[in-house]
């Protein structure tokens, strides 16, 4: 086999491997943990394009007379030795294949701590919403035709109309919902004092509550790709324990760091360290399966 043919064969193999990785991640749904929705179709398109390009190269290789150069000959690229071609092939394929085999599609607590927990919704992308003028002194809006003046004042939307509830009547929320509600005067009353149910990853609050009186319920919030995902968290007070035995039992059953748990409890928004923060007084904390999509977008 001539050097040119060998080079093209390696190129085709590289494209095939990359194509297989891209298409596998897209169609298996693993890609959901890596990229936000808007970028995912590009991965599928790139996977199919690479497959087509690899096919073109292989077909061309089969039909090509090794003695006859073509316009597509790789003259613009440096002529690499066979050893260099193999090295380049390995650099292109091995890291990707190894990462696919090793990646667990989620981050450990080490990354969460390195990136710092966001507990203030105002620090999230889009969290600083345009300030709306206070409605306290604003003139009352006139009632619609056929509407009583009292009804015109009742403009607040019932939160259960836009959030799901469990059969027990608990609001199904996410960490993101509570973080966004905390600094927002209009959203906060919708959640305050309500019993909510949410899933997140358990992480002890060793900085502010080393005594174990609270833990953080963490989710990763992604803007673009997992590399930029930021851990967001609400503070959770575990259910009260009454006896020494139950305390010991609670300690024994403490979830592992970053284990998925389901928390049911009442939401409060106290001001702590000058910031309005979401805190859940938990009624129950139980192990849970990860949600369908591990990342929040």
């Amino acid at each position: 086999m001539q050097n040119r043919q060998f080079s093209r064969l390696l190129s085709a193999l590289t494209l095939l491997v990359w194509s297989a990785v891209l298409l596998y991640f897209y169609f298996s749904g693993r890609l959901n943990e890596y990229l936000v929705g808007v970028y995912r179709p590009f991965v599928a398109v790139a996977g199919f394009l690479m497959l087509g390009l690899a096919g073109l190269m292989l077909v061309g290789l089969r039909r090509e007379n090794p003695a006859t150069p073509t316009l597509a000959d790789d003259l613009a690229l440096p002529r690499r030795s066979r050893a260099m071609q193999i090295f380049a092939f390995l650099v292109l394929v091995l890291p990707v294949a190894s990462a696919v085999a090793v990646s667990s599609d989620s981050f450990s607590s080490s990354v969460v701590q390195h990136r710092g927990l966001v507990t203030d919704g105002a620090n999230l992308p889009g969290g600083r919403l345009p300030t709306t003028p206070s409605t306290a002194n604003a003139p009352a809006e006139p009632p619609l035709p056929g509407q009583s003046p009292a009804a015109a004042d009742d403009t607040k939307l019932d939160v259960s109309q836009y959030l799901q509830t469990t059969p027990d009547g608990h609001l199904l929320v996410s960490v993101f919902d509570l973080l966004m509600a905390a600094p927002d005067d209009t959203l906060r009353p919708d959640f305050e004092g309500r019993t909510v149910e949410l899933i997140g990853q358990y992480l002890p609050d060793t900085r502010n509550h080393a005594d174990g009186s609270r833990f953080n319920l963490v989710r990763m919030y992604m803007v673009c790709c997992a590399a930029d995902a930021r851990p967001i968290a609400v503070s959770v007070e575990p259910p009260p324990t009454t006896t020494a035995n139950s305390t010991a039992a609670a300690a024994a059953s403490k979830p592992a760091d970053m284990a998925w748990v389901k928390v049911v409890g009442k939401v409060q928004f106290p001001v702590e360290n000058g910031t309005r923060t979401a805190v859940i007084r938990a009624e129950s904390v139980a192990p849970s399966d990860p949600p369908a999509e591990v990342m929040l977008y």
Partner: protein
Amino acid sequence: MSWFSFHLQDFAFAFLSVLFESVPFLLLGALISGLIEIFVPARLMTRLLPKNPVAAVALSGLLGAIFPMCECGVVPVIRRLMQKGLPVSCAITYLLAAPVLNPIVAVSTYAAFRGQNPAEMTLWRLVLSYVVAVGVGLVVTRLRPAQFLHPRVVETLPGAATRRTAFRFSALTPAPAPALAGGAAAEAVAPFSREAAGGKGDGAAPAADDPLAAVLESDLAPPSFGRRLLTALQRGAEDFLDVAIFVILGAALASVFNTAVDQRIIELLAQNPWAAVGTLMLMAFFVAVCSTSDAFIAASLHVSIPWYARLAFLTFGPMFDVKLMFLYSLVFRRRFIVWLALGLFVAIGLICVRLSVLSL
């Protein structure tokens, strides 16, 4: 917890996510570069741009509005555009400006900063990126391409341009195409002929022992559209693989920073204007996020980080990050890459610190 702790699983997760984000756009850029190589007539660029160097550079800074490219895809494209006669200074201006000066980035920046003076932030980002890109382009007009371009790229430029300054339309007359029918077809294969002629681009007759020259001389009819399209795709695929090696290296370094380094250090360093600007530019270098979404990261940084430091992050990142550092080595000499990095760092840093007197 120490400031550095490496976990292979975290690294692999971040590494793949950076690749998945950048590879489709890299492939797009590479395929466009293949199409440019085969289908764009060599003299097209000289017809489109003004003859005045300053006007041409200034216009190049705005080309991203018409041909938007992200920073990964633009590198293979400018490599081909230079071969097609785009003056090197214009190509560099386009390279630095296009990832920011395009409608997609303008809209995403505005959306990311809603509630935080979005119009002003977007405008400052566009203006500063344009000024810096044009500034670099004008500096480069004073240099000879051989001083800063990679020798392999210089070999593919129209011959005389390698000996003169980086802006010289008169030097861009394509080499006479051998024995092929004229028009676009002849122009389309002209680079092959130059390369085949010994890579010096001087328009000399093809070497007798060169295999491609033999094909061109024997192939009297212009190649069919289908054949040229296939060729363009194959060239695009080769370009992609050529560039992908460097993206892998950049993605690996960015992933180490993203997962193993305690990023809360940045918030501590960002309390002083100088430190804030410098630190945010370093962060942009290591994070290496696409220009279409970096504004969301800048907008979500801690409130203590001043707006002008975020502006430095948004301007420096799309022009020079760890991924681009490797990609640029395909086009530029190593020494120029170092000078470009330092120049951008100092220029953007000084401007942004100077802007600290303004409040948004």
